[in-house]
């Protein structure tokens, strides 16, 4: 159902924002390959975010916004 899907994507967005700073590493000073480990976490998280955005753009784009009769997922990109 569209509402459930919207809820899932909102949860995904909250998680993406919430964990871009690795709060569970608070106070950690471990260095890996010349950078603090929490910088590496952040770099990896941003790459993951990009992958999630891609998934969103291909699977759910238009959700919560477009209100045409056909569902956005089933429609081609016409412009």
């Amino acid at each position: 159902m569209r509402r459930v899907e919207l809820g899932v994507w909102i949860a995904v967005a909250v998680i993406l924002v919430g964990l871009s700073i690795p709060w569970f590493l608070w106070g950690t000073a471990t260095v890996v390959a010349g950078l603090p480990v929490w910088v590496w976490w952040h770099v990896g998280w941003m790459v993951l975010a990009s992958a999630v955005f891609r998934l969103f753009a291909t699977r759910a784009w238009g959700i919560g916004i477009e209100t045409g009769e056909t569902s956005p997922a089933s429609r081609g990109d016409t412009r």
Partner: protein
Amino acid sequence: MSLSLQLGIVVGYLVLALLVGLVAYRLTDRTAEDFYLASRTLGTVVLLFTTFATLLSAFTFFAGPNLAYHNGPEWILVMGVMDGIIFAILWYVVGYKQWLLGRQYDYVTLGEMLGDRFGSRTLRGLVAGISLLWLFPYVMLQQVGAGTALEALTDGAVSYAAGAGLVTAFMIVYVVLAGMRGIAWTDTLQGAFMLLVTWAATLWVLAAVGGPEVATAGLEEAAAEHLALGGGLYTPQWMVSTAITIGFGVAMFPQVNQRFFVAGSKTVFKRSFTLWPILCVLLFVPAFMLGAWARGLGIEAAVGENVLPLILAEYTPLWFAAVVVAGAMAAMMSSSDSMLLSGSSYFTRDLYRPFVEADLPARREDLLARAGVVVFAVAAYLASLVNPATLFELGDAAFSGFAQLALPVMVALYWRRTTRTGILVGVVASQAFYLSSLFVDAVPASYAGWTAGIVGMLLGLVLTVGVSAVTSPAADERRAIYFDGLRAD
């Protein structure tokens, strides 16, 4: 010899930007919509880089590394979450909806979009007025940055006034000539240049000191606490407040918000959105690590002194420092040029046309728009010569000031029951509160570690929703237009 080389690099760079603007001018229609929005035709690379270059100002280049130098590299995370994630999500939530509405109803500014929905000229003018209040000092700060950077680079041979004036003059010429298309193209050049220069600087310094392990070991010796996540300035409240207020503020900055209208297609929107976090992390990690490492490399920077030029002077040749200053000018110009254009469009469309001359012919609007750019730029330049304290403070607080607009606008975009009274109260009260926190001693700037910016945002949200719930919509509100029949094809 070195002075002429440095000036040559900077001026050469300015001339190149001007040439790109001239090429764009040849493709420009003489209409206000083309001038402001390049007729809504931008492709992925140009949209991505123009947004990127517009978002990142001289601040990213200078203040960001300074912050990392004094407090540690956590700034990477704060900028990453605010620009890379929060802004990207708003790009969809606010931006995509605005883009669809803009195409359907020919909106050029945020104020126009809101004024039409709520049947309110007052709201339209208010949003434009508030935006100009925060925008003008911010433009001024960019000019202050350019003047200072050129003066420092040339050891005073180019005075502060001449440096800021030179940059202002170049910007006026290509913005007036080429409008959004020229800006978007020069931004693409400038954004790519910034990325390239940052990476070159970082790799150069790392090669000279023996790699990131050595640089980080040095930092551990000099300030071990900087390697631990958090501590000092970086409290969770501060990091979250800063990321939220700046992330939301950016989306309401006129020059960024107006970019929500310019995508050529839905595909362009999707691709830019997908690539966005990667682009951000590619710039932030090297730029701010360089500042953080400088601390361990024995670079002595006083508070208020820029770290980046110092570390470059230590490890790279003179000409390269000039290239980096050109990169910083690129960052500054690519933000300011767009601000001039947006400032002018807010003024002509949302203040001049509705309140002074309602039946302005299209051709005159186009001319007025260009005149607006000149007036705005010259006024900001003159202000930058004086750099009055009040304007400085406003410019410094601009992100939080714009952030106050974000939640009332989002409520209006997604909640059909929002009323004209509700949004007016939400906008006015949050602005009044935030301005008081800056200028009235009785209103504190911090609430248990949370900034006044974020408290003001909450106030705006609660008031917009609360007042809307207890008031009825005015007869001439168009409550359905944000919801019905909204689709990309």
